[in-house]
Structures are given as structure tokens and as C-alpha cells.
């Protein structure tokens, strides 16, 4: 398990990460979501010791990252897929990483095969596509056979095929017993394979729940069409729901389709159309983080 407690980072007057506390459970995929400038990348850098926090700490099964004798065997991090020298081959890039972590050299060929880069081992990274760079970055993270994978926006720039490959790989890693902590803007994509979500905004924790719990709170909208709109609106008003009426069409929030149908029946109101739509997970999360977004569209 990863325990993040009281993590704080300030840059001058600006607090990038503000007393962040959450846990990442073992053998699960945890999504880390938030708008631009929410502090996700800063948090991930603090989780692997690249940025010294002003307060708080991160522990992996009770041990701080900087106290680990073999950090690469506990945590594999992919924080930026472009982090490779363009003049170095894939093999030498991984050989240098393996040597630094005292990992047997034979492991290089294994991880290259695992990510499907066997045919490009002696090609310079400068000639790689973005998808290949992403795979090489993941190979580097897998060198130490870590228990935890941390990934910061790994899908950025990938085509749908690449995104699907990455999703399958991370899911397989979690199925094997690994822990995945992945930040992404692609909330819809994340919801396909994430078990839990940690939501941040303006450096603060907004939610840390399972995807099911967040989904269950999604707002429902009922649309009813009736030749008696005023009667239906009057009946609904007494039930503490919001109603927006446009001619014969009412958009109702705060109740369910079944409840509207029952009310109409009890009050002799004829309904021509009755439908229900649930708010998407993306809309739910955007509602949650909307007030803390640094940059928003008009």
C-alpha cells in the first residue's frame, strides 16, 4: 500500500500541493485526476523523491522511498516518456538504467520483449515514435520487477491503439498483484480500467473513492413531455426538485423517472414522453473540480 500523508509543496506564494493525504491500495488500479495545475505531477515527483516536499511524506508498505535500498524493485515510475537521450539506443538506455539499480543485464532483453520492442533494440531513441517512447519508458519502469507502477499522463499523444495497449498492460500488471497509480486527463478512458479514483483540485484532495461510489452519486436528469406542463410542474415543485419548463417539455433534476411517473399517475397527468439520463463520470468529476481549475474555457 502507498500512504501519502500531509504532502505539501509551495513555490513562493503559490501552494502547489496542499496537505494531501490518501492511500493507494495494493493490487488495484488507482486513477489520479484533476485539472491542469492541480498538483498531480508535483505530487508524483514527490512520491519518487525528485521534488523535496515542504511537509508530509510518502511511504510504500511503511517505508519511505528514500529509505529503500532498491527503490527500482519497489516502484517503477514513468513520469515523462520523452526522458531519454535521442542519441542512445533503446538497449543502451535500459542498460544504463539497469546498471544504476544493480539489476542483472539480462533483464534488459526481458523487458524489451515484454513491451514489444525487440525489433527496435539497437535503434536510437531519437527515431522512435511517441508510442515507442512510451513503451521504452514503461520498459525502464519494469526493469526492477517493481510492485508499484507510477505513471503521469502516460496516454498523452498516443493513438487509440496505443492507449488500448497501455490499458491492457496496466490491467494485466494489477491482475498479477501489482499496484498501479496513474494520472490522466482522459477520465473516460481511466474509468474503463481504474478501480479507485483520487481527485485533486488546486493542490487539495477533493475525493478518494472507488469508481463505483463516484458513479453512484452521478446526477440523474429526467425529461418529461406532457400536455399538462403547468400541472406537472406544480406537483413537482412540492417535492423539492428543480424543474425547467420549455413549452410541453420539462427537464427535472433531483428525482427519478419512476418517481415522476408515479406522481403523474396519482395526479391524473398524462405523459407523452418520459426518459432518464445519468451524468457521465467525466461531467461528475468536472463538476467536482470545476471551482479549482486554473484555466477554464468560456
Amino acid at each position: 500500500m502507498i500512504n501519502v500523508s500531509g504532502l505539501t509543496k509551495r513555490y513562493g506564494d503559490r501552494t502547489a500541493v496542499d496537505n494531501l493525504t490518501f492511500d493507494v491500495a495494493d493490487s488495484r488500479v488507482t486513477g489520479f485526476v484533476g485539472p491542469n495545475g492541480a498538483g498531480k505531477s508535483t505530487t508524483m515527483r514527490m512520491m519518487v523523491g525528485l521534488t523535496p516536499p515542504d511537509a508530509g511524506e510518502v511511504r510504500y508498505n511503511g517505508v519511505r522511498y528514500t529509505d529503500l535500498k532498491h527503490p527500482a524493485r519497489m516502484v517503477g515510475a514513468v513520469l515523462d516518456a520523452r526522458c531519454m537521450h535521442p542519441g542512445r539506443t533503446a538497449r543502451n538506455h535500459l542498460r544504463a538504467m539497469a546498471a544504476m539499480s544493480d539489476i542483472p543485464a539480462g533483464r534488459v532483453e526481458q523487458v524489451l520483449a515484454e513491451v514489444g520492442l525487440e525489433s527496435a533494440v539497437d535503434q536510437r531513441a531519437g527515431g522512435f515514435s511517441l508510442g515507442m517512447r512510451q513503451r521504452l519508458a514503461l520498459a525502464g519502469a519494469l526493469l526492477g520487477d517493481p510492485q508499484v507502477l507510477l505513471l503521469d499522463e502516460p496516454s498523452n499523444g498516443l493513438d487509440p491503439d496505443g492507449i488500448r495497449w497501455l490499458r491492457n498492460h496496466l490491467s494485466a500488471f494489477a491482475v498479477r498483484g501489482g499496484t498501479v497509480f496513474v494520472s490522466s486527463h482522459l477520465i473516460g478512458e481511466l474509468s474503463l480500467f481504474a478501480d479507485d479514483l483520487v481527485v485533486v483540485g488546486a493542490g487539495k484532495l477533493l475525493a478518494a473513492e472507488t469508481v463505483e461510489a463516484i458513479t453512484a452519486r452521478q446526477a440523474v436528469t429526467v425529461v418529461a413531455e406532457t400536455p399538462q406542463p403547468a400541472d406537472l410542474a406544480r406537483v413537482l415543485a412540492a417535492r423539492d426538485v428543480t424543474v425547467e419548463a420549455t413549452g410541453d417539455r420539462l427537464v427535472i433534476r433531483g428525482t427519478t423517472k419512476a418517481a415522476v411517473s408515479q406522481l403523474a399517475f396519482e395526479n391524473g397527468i398524462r405523459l407523452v414522453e418520459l426518459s432518464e439520463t445519468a451524468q457521465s463520470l467525466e461531467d461528475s468529476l468536472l463538476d467536482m473540480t470545476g471551482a479549482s481549475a486554473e484555466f477554464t474555457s468560456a
Partner: protein
Amino acid sequence: MTTTIPTTTVPTINPPIPWAASNRLALRTRSDDTRAVPAALRSEWIKLASLRANKVILALTPLVGALIAWALASSATDKKLTASELFIFPLPLVAMLATATGILMFTSEAQHGTLAAALTARPTRWMIVTAKAAMATMVGLVLGATAMAAGFGGALLGGVEVGDESAIASRAAWALLYIALGAMIGLGVGMIARHSAGAISGLLMWAFVIESLFAPALPDGVVHFLPFSAGYRLLDAGPNFKAPVTIAHELARPEYALIFGGYALVSLAIGTLLLYRRDTN
């Protein structure tokens, strides 16, 4: 040219690796950090040896040494100059090569993001700096030795005598110290600046322009302590060698070595401190 690969590969799920699983949560001790320096050195060697640019520098260095010594020997009207003196004349230029290599050992990693991978693998910053400093020293020694050997041969080809052979070992040793310290100064400056072009151009400007232009106007007591003026004095080849600056009261070579070495130590110390305090992306 960009190569693409098929994206339809199915991820394999390999069984856990015993050497990895058995000591994932082992705690780091101080002696572990010291014992990890050889691993860091191996990594630095792989990084150095795997880039074409470094191989080009290594190949060019003896060429530069031989050409400069040959040109000086060929054009010297005063044939009292000998190969045992001329072989170190190319070294100020080679020292700049070594200094630039020291800078790039850090700035290239910082700019391409591989420094983050190194620090993630080994969060103990001083160990990374130790490995880089050792590698920078080795690079300096190799560049210096090859330049001097080629310079000796180039001088002989230029038509001068061998000269006082007994002085060669001593001059070579001081020259190697000069080059190695120059490489370490480069590493320290690179760690402070974190920008290749800025660090290299700044250092070259300081060494070749500022020190050379202003040194004659400065009191002798100040000139002793300018870094490259002090370092250059380690190359004193004897009575026929004229220093680029006029120094009324010369210090002994060990004193110049301490001054030049002091700059290397201070730049590395400041660079290491910044490495601990700065964010690494």
C-alpha cells in the same frame, strides 16, 4: 526517419522474479550508498560510451594534440624548443574539451530527462555526484594522456629534438592534474547552470576572454587566484615557456594546484547542494 511497430502485441504476464521480490523493502544504510558507487560508475560509463559524440571527441583529441604540436614545432624559428616541452602546448585547448565534456555529463542528462531516472534509481544525490566526478576525472585523464602522446609525436614530426626526457614524467603528471581538475570544474558548473549552451559559452568566455583580457590589468596577487590562470600555471614547461600573463611573484605549482582544485571543489559542492534542493524534472 521514424519507425513504427505493430501495436497489437498482447502483454505477457511473467512470474515474479525471485531476486527482485525477496528484498523489495530492504532498508538503505550508509554503507549501502558507498557500495552502490561502482554500480553508478558502471551506469555512467555506459552513458558515456554509448554516445557517438563522445567517441568523436576521443578520436579528435589526439589529432588536435598532434596538429598543434607539429605546427608549433614546424614554425618555431627558435629550435631550442623541444618535444619534451611542446607536447603540453595543446593542453589548454584539450582542457576546454575536457571541461565541456564535464559540463555535458550533467547538462545533457538534465535537458533530456535522464537525470530524473538516475535520481529515481538512486535518490542519494552525493553518490550520483561522486560517480560523475570520478567519470569526469577519468575522461580528463584519457583526453590529456592521448593529447600529450600525440603531441609528443607531432612535435618530433615537426623537426624538433626530444629534449630533456627526465622532465617529461613530471610535466605530464601536472598536466594530467590540470585536465582532470578542468573536467571537474566543468561538471560543477554544469550542475549549477543546468544548461549546456549557457554553461559552455560562459566558461569559454571566462577562460579565453575575461581572464586573458583583464588579467594583465589586475594586481599580481589577484591574478594568482583566477581559476584558469592558476590552472594554466600547472603547465609550466620551463625557461622557454612564457605564461599568458605576467606574474611578478610566482607561486609554487602545488599552490596553483590547490587554487585550481579549490575551484573544482567549490563548484562541485555548490552543484551538489543545488541538486539536493532543486526539483528534478
